[in-house]
């Protein structure tokens, strides 16, 4: 008897070239085709339209009777009889190379800057594979962004995933661009390579980033993957994966430190919801699919450091919270996966404070191992904790003041009001081209705290107070 395995292999080679003419159903970005050979789950599909143009797709559901394919470049213009399908027998891969830095691509990694496709030696599955937790290196290197409220209170660490939770019309793009320009490692001269993934954002925003990279002279260290608002929404599903596949190559195979900016995650999630709805899946909250958490985790977990590799991937995803609602599933699930969040506050923005980072809900979970003696400064951990505590009391006092009037406040509470003002105006607020080193940020923080009586500063030690309080 012939070995069924070899038969299978032979079959595969024969079938790979086979082209099916005509499909059974087209619904949004999804094509259903019947009577095919056995097709593998998540297999790469080429879908050829009547003009002979090839669009890429992926198998979402496969059975002996029908196969569902999602087409990344959209299905507009396709006809039932005129569409040809070819199943490639392997998952979707992208070719990656260092030479992609300085270039612009679409969401599938095809160049759209007029240049030739970069000569790539390796091709990688866009979905990546889960990293073995034992192979990870715990990130602990402090990145100085030059932005006080980040460096002192929500420290960014190399290899961290730290999203910006923003809202429409808030300056998240400025902040992301400023971080990309200013991020450095103290005492080290390594530059970051930037991988930029745009999902459903407008042309002028993409332009803003390109100009900003250009004016700081780093454009040749940036690879852009653009799937803008006018591209088929389904392409957004693959864009971050393509970008992260390059980032992984740069970090783990070329040893670079990579900063990945992904914007806007909310658009990505909407595309996911669209597909889920078309497929008739049971939704969980607000119509988003039940697997939104796992799906986002597949993206966000592709960051960090690997033992024995010099490189790293730091992620800065941007998302606009629908209605500024932090409990909306997109920011909520993101917060459950990422290692902290920088939250924007509309009220601070309207008081012209830049960056309008809300003090209390923002958090960096990795800062504990990257700050303090030998890394930033010995008083940093307690100082940060004190700023949060005191600022949180300011919020209470402000509430009280709005009820009983500011004059009625106790003397101490008035001091808190003053501290709050100073903290927001001098410490948080800075110019979008202002680059403060960490000592400067900590000094300003101490100056603000010195407006409060020393007894109130319970989170700082005697030694720290002796050294810095009221200086």
């Amino acid at each position: 008897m012939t070995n069924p395995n070899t038969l299978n292999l032979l079959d595969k080679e024969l079938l790979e070239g086979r082209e099916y003419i005509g499909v059974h159903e087209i619904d949004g970005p999804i094509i259903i085709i019947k009577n095919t050979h056995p097709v593998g789950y998540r297999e790469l599909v080429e879908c050829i339209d009547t003009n002979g143009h090839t669009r890429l797709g992926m198998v979402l559901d496969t059975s002996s009777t029908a196969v569902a394919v999602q087409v990344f470049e959209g299905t507009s213009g396709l006809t039932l009889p005129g569409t040809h399908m070819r199943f490639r027998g392997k998952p979707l891969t992208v070719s990656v190379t260092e030479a992609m830095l300085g270039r612009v691509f679409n969401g599938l990694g095809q160049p759209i800057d007029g240049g030739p496709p970069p000569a790539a030696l390796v091709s990688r599955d866009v979905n990546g594979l889960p990293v073995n937790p034992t192979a990870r290196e715990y990130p602990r290197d402090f990145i100085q962004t030059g932005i006080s409220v980040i460096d002192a209170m929500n420290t960014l660490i190399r290899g961290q995933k730290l999203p910006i939770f923003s809202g429409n019309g808030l300056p998240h793009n400025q902040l992301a661009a400023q971080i990309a320009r200013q991020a450095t490692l103290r005492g080290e001269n390594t530059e970051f390579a930037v991988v930029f993934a745009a999902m459903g954002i407008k042309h002028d925003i993409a332009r803003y980033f390109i100009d900003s990279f250009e004016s700081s002279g780093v454009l040749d260290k940036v690879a852009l993957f653009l799937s803008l608002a006018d591209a088929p929404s389904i392409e957004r599903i693959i864009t971050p994966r393509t970008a992260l596949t390059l980032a992984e190559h740069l970090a783990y195979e070329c040893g670079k430190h990579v900063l990945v900016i992904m914007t806007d995650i909310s658009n990505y999630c909407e595309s996911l919801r669209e597909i889920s709805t078309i497929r008739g899946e049971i939704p969980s909250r607000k119509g988003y699919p039940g697997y939104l958490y796992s799906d986002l985790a597949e993206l966000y977990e592709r960051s960090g450091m690997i033992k024995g590799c010099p490189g790293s991937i730091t992620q800065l995803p941007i998302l606009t919270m629908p209605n500024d609602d932090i409990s909306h599933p997109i920011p909520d699930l993101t917060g459950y996966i990422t290692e902290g969040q920088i939250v924007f506050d509309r009220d601070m923005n309207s008081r012209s404070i830049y960056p309008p980072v809300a003090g209390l809900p923002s958090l960096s979970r990795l800062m504990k191992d990257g700050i303090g003696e030998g890394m930033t400064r010995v008083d940093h951990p307690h100082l940060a904790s004190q700023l949060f505590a005191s600022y949180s009391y300011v919020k209470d006092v402000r509430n009280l003041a709005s009820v009983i009037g500011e004059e009625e406040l106790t003397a101490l509470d008035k001091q808190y009001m003053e501290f709050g003002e100073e903290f927001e105006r001098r410490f948080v607020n800075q110019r979008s081209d202002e680059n403060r080193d960490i000592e400067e940020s900590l000094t300003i923080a101490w100056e603000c705290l010195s407006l409060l009586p020393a007894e109130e500063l319970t989170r700082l030690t005697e030694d720290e107070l002796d050294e810095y309080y009221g200086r």
Partner: protein
Amino acid sequence: MEEQIIGRVKRVNGPVIEAEGITNGMMMELVRVSEARLIGEIIKLSGACAIIQVYEDTTGVAPGNIIYGSGMPLSVELGPGLIGTIYDGIQRPLERLAEISGTTIQRGIQAPPLSRDHQWDFIPALKTGDFVTPGTILGRVQESERIEHRVLCPPDVLGEIISIVDSGAYTVDETIATIKTSSGNHNLTMMHRWPIRKPRPVTDRIPLRIPLITGQRVIDTLFPLAKGGTVAIPGGFGTGKTMTQHAIAKWCDADIIVYIGCGERGNEMTDVLNEFPKLIDPRTGSSLMERTLLIANTSNMPVSAREASIYTGATLAEYYRDQGYHVAVMADSTSRWAEALRELSGRMEEMPAEEGFPAYLPTRIAEFYERAGYMQNLNGTEGSVSLIGAVSPPGGDFSEPVTQHTKRFVRCFWGLDRQLANARHYPAISWLDSYSEYLDEVSPWWSTRAGDSWARNRKRIMELLQREVKLQQVVKLVGPDALPDSQRFIIEVCSLFKNAFLQQNAFDKNDCYSTIEKQLRMMDIILLYADMGETAIRRGVTLVNLRRIKVLQDIVKMKLTVANDDIAQLDRLEARLIRSIEKL
């Protein structure tokens, strides 16, 4: 355990596979799918069709692929070598996998959970002619510096020893004893298998009476957990579930810790792997890794293995309980497990109940928490499994199904509060929402150590905290000046209690855990301030003067400045407090 072809793939939808032509399939049977030999489990049988849940990424699996049956249910290997190991949700040893396939987890790779090469020094406890029943201790192995592994007779073997090896070094698959049973001779090794979804049998449940001391003041003093008890820690993102579980895993007085990272971050597991070996257990002086087992099925690892990870963890815990140990299981997060259930159920096109969760969600949650308990084991020893489950409610809203159903089946509840976390009051365990139903059970234990002061002080401070809430409502409307000093002093005491006692910094070397002696003394001092201050105010001392006494600064910082082995310092602090107030 012959492998045989039992059917073929009909449809693939994510981790759920429909199979056809099934002959000989068994519910819960472990199967391998396609030539990639992906691990799966039969979860539904109907006629010649079956539904299989696959524990690995199913990319490339196609209709017609072969399904191989194993003839046995999805099980874990139990024997020496578990401690200090990190497994994935279906007990694949992650360190071995990294040696085989590098930094990423490739599909279809396999490695035995217990090393087949390692030789363990086995010391028999029985001799030829002895009679063994399920759970009997056959012998001992020093598994780690601090854990003596008791090699157990599997729960389904009963008979007379016809041969048993001498003391010596053996691997886990070498025969160490032969038992004559009613169904023939049975060779036993140091290891056996047990299906993960089936609780290991015990003789009896014993009423709970001993607290699990965690070293976390808000827990031990206000909302204690009993050994063998269950607790849920719900909280929105970043409120401190993981940190609380890490702190308990580090400092609690259980013998064994099983830490399940279920659908959470990869770096958090790396953190444990880096940190635990370096930390020294204050009770035994050995490294914390010497008592810890890790299960990591992170958020980016296959979702069905996430579903299994909880059961894998519970089974490993029960196995050590059967050896007479107290085991504490941390599951972070049970919500991710519930979501895995939801996703699989959705893919199987089952009818959803609340928020897309399957109707059997409450049953599954109940079954899980039922695996906790303080038990009389089959071999006469006593042991316990305590379950500590994190819950991640969407939007931090505790009214969602997983939190609500969990609440029905646990007896202790540590609710994390967003406001507290935002103010960096950690642990952010709310003293208003949280409760423990173990108070009465553990009170006698505390009485034997500290007279009635634990229960009395606890009651006193809880009353003050309740009164403070009412007073704060008044303050919010009219400002603090409207209150008389005696009432403002209550607010003062509560704020001292929160700063000095409830807040506990997990990163500080003195504060990361407190012995019960330190907790009791700290509480004494704070309540002494409350009592003496109250009389002083009645005597006419003003609140302003009372607040100004210098020793208060030292009381706030006593948690940081007084080491656990130096609590005599607290006596001096107390004396200074008495003097300062008397002088007013």
